[in-house]
Each structure stands twice: as structure tokens, then as C-alpha cells.
């Protein structure tokens, strides 16, 4: 890999984002930094996670500084209210982003009057943050159910670890975003919906997240889930399942950005209505307005039956 690649973020884009605390939609820059990546990715990865493809063991702080320069240029141009920094791993894992780099980022946020910094981390690394920066930390909880999270997904942390991290963050005024996985391997469509709703319910009831982000499983290269999918043992969830989850969520804001939505490797319905449904889901994520989810397509009937079928079949029927 050429050095020059290590000096550029994996990706960077501008987007609209719900500033849920203020109930308005603002400009947001999302950056995916190329870091050394999640420490579990090589040894014992999560079954659906293919992010290791965006990381590189050779990344040094030097490289990251270069990447941040690139980000800074963009910030200057776009003047976002929100900055999202993702690392294909944990922001707080010093092996990925050192104390030094994190400080640099906090500095940038302050310098450019960015109102909110959003990062992601596994809970075991969450021990500190800059109290002067308004932050939101996303944690890949996936499910409140330890069996689902650890046996099916292979996440490797307990719900208790999550709640401890959550409580710590709240104690220092940091918001917590919980990621939930819609359709881990081996759960059928309906079981997956139920699992997510169960998670939402608990998080909502116990106020264990400020915002919840639903991730419908998509088929990432080189993952276990991809093998399942290739051999006919997995179908990404229906978009209707995401809609169903969003419709039945609680008071906690719930957002969802269906990666690869409407594609074979992403959550999809019949491919005819997918565009519209993805748009509605995104719209809901910005507005939290349930009305936008009142959608219909003939394939909704198929989805309903699909839930029955996959329950007993334990795999998608390919016809």
C-alpha cells in the first residue's frame, strides 16, 4: 500500500444530521480515519464486521496528523455544526488514536466552533474525554441480550460493561449513542426485529442511551456473514423490518442509515420500493416523525410471510 494512502482518511463526506438535543437538522462532516483498526478485527472479529479492510497496521501518528490536516481543510470549507470521526474501531483505544491525536481533534472542534463531536468506541476504552468539547460517543452495543451480542455476533463485552461506560459518559456530560444490529447471523427476520425492539425498550425504559442507531446488517467483504450469505444462509434484513422497528420505538430518538439499502448486499425489500423506503427511513432519522413511515408496497405481504418462513427455515429460501 502506498504511503500516500495512509495520509488520507478512508472517506470524508458532508451530510445532514439530526442535532437531536436541539431538535434541528444541521450540516455534518463525517470522517473515517484510517487507523490501525479495531484490536479484535484480526484475532476474533465480529461476524458481520468488515471494517478491518479500512485499517492498516502501519498507520502512525504522523499519518493521522496528515489525515487531520485534510479534515481541517474540509472543515474550513464546509463549516459544519457536527463533526463525526470514525476509526473503524474505537476512538478511545490508544492503539488506534493516541492521546495526542485525540487532543488534536478536540482542538480542531474548539477552533472551528463545531458544536458537537461524534465518535465511536467499544466500552472498555471509555475512561476519559475532554470536558470542554460537547461529545457523543457511539457504542456498538448491538443488543442488550448477552447471548445475541456475544454468541451470535461475537462482540466480546457484556451489557454491564456497556452500562458502566454509559454511566461514566453521562457523568461527564457526554451523550451516548447505542448502535443496535438489526439481524445478527442465525436470528430469523422476526427474531431479529424482536431482539432490536427488546433492546430499544430496555434502553428507553432504563434511560441507557441518549440516542439509538439501528444498523441493518449488510454483507461486508471478508466477513463470516458474507460466507453465510454466499452459501445461501443469510439474507440482509428487509427494509420493512427497519421500518417496523422505527415505528415501534420509544421516546429515545432512534435513527437509522441503511448502509447499502436497496442493494443485494444491504437491507432491501423487493427492489422496487427500496428507494422510497430508504428515503423515508432517512427522513424519519432526521425528523423522528413516524408519519413518514406510513408506506405501502405489495411486497409488504411477502415480508410478513417471510418472517414466518425464515423462522422455521433458518435460512432464506432462494427461488
Amino acid at each position: 500500500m502506498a504511503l500516500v494512502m495512509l495520509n488520507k482518511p478512508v472517506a470524508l463526506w458532508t451530510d445532514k444530521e439530526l442535532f437531536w438535543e436541539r431538535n434541528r437538522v444541521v450540516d455534518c462532516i463525517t470522517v473515517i480515519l484510517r487507523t490501525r483498526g479495531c484490536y479484535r478485527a484480526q484475532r476474533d472479529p465480529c461476524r458481520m464486521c468488515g471494517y478491518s479492510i479500512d485499517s492498516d497496521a502501519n498507520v502512525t501518528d504522523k499519518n493521522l496528523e496528515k489525515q487531520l490536516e485534510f479534515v481541517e481543510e474540509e472543515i474550513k470549507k464546509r463549516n459544519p455544526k457536527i463533526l463525526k470521526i470514525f476509526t473503524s474501531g474505537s476512538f478511545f483505544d490508544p492503539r488506534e488514536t493516541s492521546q495526542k491525536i485525540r487532543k488534536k481533534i478536540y482542538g480542531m472542534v474548539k477552533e472551528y466552533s463545531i458544536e458537537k463531536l461524534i465518535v465511536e468506541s467499544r466500552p472498555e476504552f471509555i475512561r476519559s474525554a475532554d470536558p470542554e468539547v460537547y461529545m457523543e460517543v457511539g457504542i456498538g452495543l448491538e443488543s442488550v441480550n448477552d447471548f445475541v451480542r456475544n454468541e451470535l455476533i461475537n462482540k466480546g463485552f457484556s451489557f454491564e460493561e456497556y452500562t458502566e461506560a454509559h454511566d461514566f459518559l453521562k457523568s461527564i456530560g457526554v451523550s451516548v449513542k447505542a448502535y443496535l444490529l438489526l439481524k445478527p447471523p442465525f436470528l430469523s427476520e422476526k427474531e431479529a426485529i424482536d431482539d432490536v425492539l427488546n433492546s430499544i425498550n430496555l434502553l428507553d425504559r432504563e434511560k441507557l442511551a441518549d440516542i439509538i442507531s439501528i444498523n441493518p446488517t449488510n454483507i461486508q467483504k471478508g466477513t463470516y456473514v458474507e460466507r453465510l450469505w454466499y452459501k445461501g444462509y443469510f439474507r440482509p434484513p428487509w427494509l420493512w423490518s427497519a421500518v417496523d422497528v422505527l415505528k415501534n420505538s420509544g421516546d429515545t430518538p432512534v435513527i437509522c442509515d441503511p448502509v447499502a439499502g436497496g442493494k443485494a448486499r444491504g437491507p432491501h425489500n423487493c427492489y422496487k420500493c427500496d428507494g422510497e423506503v430508504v428515503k423515508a427511513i432517512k427522513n424519519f432519522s432526521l425528523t423522528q416523525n413516524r408519519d413518514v413511515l406510513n408506506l405501502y408496497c405489495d411486497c409488504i405481504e411477502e415480508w410478513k410471510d417471510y418472517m414466518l418462513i425464515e423462522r422455521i427455515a433458518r435460512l432464506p429460501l432462494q427461488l
Partner: protein
Amino acid sequence: MKATCSLIKRDGWARIAEFDFNGEKFQTPFVIDIENPPEFIDEIINLVPYSIKELDPQAFEKFFVEKEFLIASGLTAVPPSKVVELLIEIRQKSLTKPMIATAIATPQNIPLLCYFGVDFFDNAMAIASAHKGLYFHERVLNFDSLDELPCSCEACRNLEGLELLKRHNTIKLEEQALLVRQLIRNESLRNHVEVKAKTQPELTVMLRIADRNYDFFEKMHSRFKKSIVYPTTTESFTRMEVSYFLQRIKEVYEPETKVALLLPCTAKKPYSLSRTHKTILSHLGNLIKRVDEIIISSPLVLPREFELCYPAMNYDTPVTGHWSGEEIEFVAEHLSSLIDSFDYIIAHVEGGYKEVVREALDATGKDASFTAENGVTSKKSMERLKEELKNVEDCRKDRYRSLFEHMFRYQFDLDLKSLTKFSMNFKGRYPNIFATINRENALRVDTVYGMLDVYLPMAEKISTYNVEIADFEPKGTIFSAGIEWADEKIRPNDVVIFRNSEFIGVGRALMSGREMMESNKGYAVSVKRKTRIQSD
């Protein structure tokens, strides 16, 4: 949830059984409606499909839990050969547990899956197909392309669109399951399986591979049946009815002479009552006793002694006059082992039969004289055959005795001669013949099943195919709960000798011997006759 299984009727691994789940009863083969599932549905749901075993043995180990059901799931994701392997592996886990094949049933594959011992199905594939616009019928049709519906089921007459399709497809599964049930009752499922296997290449492959699993199918193979074998296809040559018979006659055949007379088969069964064989036999008179006769047919080839033995009495081959290369090869191979012990062969055959004989002679290095010309009953043919037989050393084979001895050995693996110390006589009009001892009936040819029926005086002498029952007076049917021990050799339909301290009797097995011991409910033996043991 506990399931109890009562066997009602077997045809090989396929069975009609009544399963009781906490008081709810289901007769198999049964199709579960997933839109309206029975309470036991949870016993069928597992986290991972069984076939994940192939892709990820660890996930299987970790997430697949054995339940009240034997669950054959995920079969659509593996190739046909693997499906066969998994079905056999799963079915062998238990003789009594209900087995389900999930999310795979179509009207095409239900018969074959039942043939492997699957009891339960669901309509997942039927519903999924409905959503793809597929309309189940003898062939799968495209619903949108149908001008008229070739069906008059309630769905087709009363419903529309998706609801019609879902219901219709489900009905077609249920009809097929009911049809299979009827064919199990008739002991004729295999004929239907062979036909349905022709509808799809994968099913053809599955059936062909199934037939390589002799040991599995032999465990439940009825050696004697009341149904007809229709060998209309290549797979008919490898079906158990044929394989077992050809294998078994080789094991028990004991020719008495040194010369084999080969004759062609006839459409009429038994052969010796056909016009052709009657002509030949009456023409030869006592000369026929100098040789051992072997009848060549396709796919069967058999010594005369077995012509009343299932399925020699019970098959109907399509005859075009043309023998295919495969037929010739197949029959010749089996003929070769039958003629191996003879010094000389007289082949009174023509056409394709002759080719079979030639190939068998090549294989064994034997000599033969061919005696037929312009029809096996032509004057010339008959004269030449007679001349040939006149040159054979005299011998006085007793036809009935030889027949009973062979059928007895075939059936009980015992030597009738030594058991009865040569005291047997014979009576009756062929093929309804009896062996008697001291003027009492001892054995009878049961022409419906192609087997020997046993009378009580003989029963006492038979040490194989025995069943020990608890101390009660057996009446009508003996249930498996009453069975203490059973010979593992017993297969459904076998004639068995049952005993307890007070009674001895003869019955027809309705299960295999192992099954009699393993199952707690269900029909095990149907009583034919019994008597109180004489205490001396």
C-alpha cells in the same frame, strides 16, 4: 413437550404414524401450516439449520440443539448428494422420533422425502413460491401465464391472487401427503417416488444416490409385499425390491443338478402358468427334472424355485422387444453368479435374452448350447431342447420340495430339510400349494405377499424371526409395548413366530425387529394364528 409415536403402517422408512404431542394428535405424513402452526412448533425451531454443519461445524455444535423432533433443516442450501447424506444421518438418530424436513416441501419432493423417513413437512416453500408467482401442480407453473387454472381446489374456485396461490400451493402439498399415505398403505410408494423423481434433475440425482445406501434402506425393507413393482425406469433396477431379491437368491440358491436350463420370462406370473412355459414343461415331461431351471427377465433373473417369491410374482416390465445395453449388462451380471456352479448350460432363449446369456457365458467362461429357433415353442425348438435333455444324466428333482426349501431358506435362513427330517409332503394346486407334516399343514405359499406362511406345528421348529412377548393372550394385533425381545433380522411384513410362557403363534411383522424393541407404542405384529403351549 413430549411426543409419543404410534406406528400404524410402514413402507420402508416411509410410515404412517400417529404422534401425540401433549394430547394433540397428528397422523403422518403431515404438512404444517406455518401461518397456523401447531403448538409443538417450538420443537422444530432451532437457532441454526442442520446443514450449517457442513459450512461451520462449530456453529452447529454450539447452536444446534437436539429436540423432540429430528430436524432436517437448511437442506435447500446444500447439493442433492449432501441432502441424501444428511437425511440418512438424521433419520438414523432414532426410529421413533418424528422427523421434519423444514422449508423444502413441494409436491414433487414429498414422496422422495417420505421415502427417507421424513414424517413432517411445512408449507414454507409453498408460500415462498406463491410470492414468486409459482403455482404448484404436477409441474411448477407460472401463475401469470395461466389462462385457465388447471385445478378445481377450493382455493382455485373461491380465492384470488396471492391468497389463491398460497392456499392452492398448500393444498397441493397436503394432497401429496395424503397420496403418499395411501401409497404407504398399499406398500407401493417406491413406484411413485420413481415417477416424481423424474420431474426434476436434482430429485433424480437424489434417488440415484439414495440407492447407493443399501444398508440404510435394507434396515426397513419389507422383503415381501402385496404391491406390484413397475420397473419403468433406470432407477427401478437399483430399488431395494430388486437389489435385495437378486442378492438374497444368490445367498440361498442350492441347485441340485449340474445342468442349468435357461428360459425366457413371460408376462404372466408365475411363469410356469404361462402358455409358453406350460407348453415347454408339458413337452419335456420328466426330462425337466434332470436340470435346474433359471428364468431370465429384466431386471430380474431367478431360479424356478423363486418364481413365487416376491417380487418375481409381482412385477410388470414394459416390453418393447428391445433390450438396452444396460439391461443386458445388468441381467447378465446376475445371471453369471447364478450359473457359476453348473457344468453345462442349455439356453432355450432368443433375441435379447440370448445376448444376456452370451454376456454371462463370456463372464463365466462356461459353455452352452442354444436350443431355440423361430420361437421357443416352435416344433424345431422343442425337439432340439428335448434331444439336449435326453443327453443329460437322469435326476428326479422334486419341484415342490425344492421350491419350499428355497423359499424357506430365503425367508428364515434355515434348512427346511433338516428341520423336518424329510417328513414333508405336498398338496394343493400350483401356485396355491402346501407343505404338510403328518397330514397337517406346515407351510403354505402366500401368493399375495410372495412368501411362505407358517402353520403352528411348523412354527415351533423355527428359531429365527422370533418375537418374545409379555405374558398376555395375544389377539388381533400385538402392540410394541407388549414386546420383550425381537429378532433384529425382522423387517416389516416378515412372518414372525411370537411366544410367551403360555402361547406360541404366527404373525406378520408390522415393524422391524429393532423398532419393536425401541418403540413403546404402535402396531408391531398382526396375529395370524396362535395356540396355547402344550405343557407336557
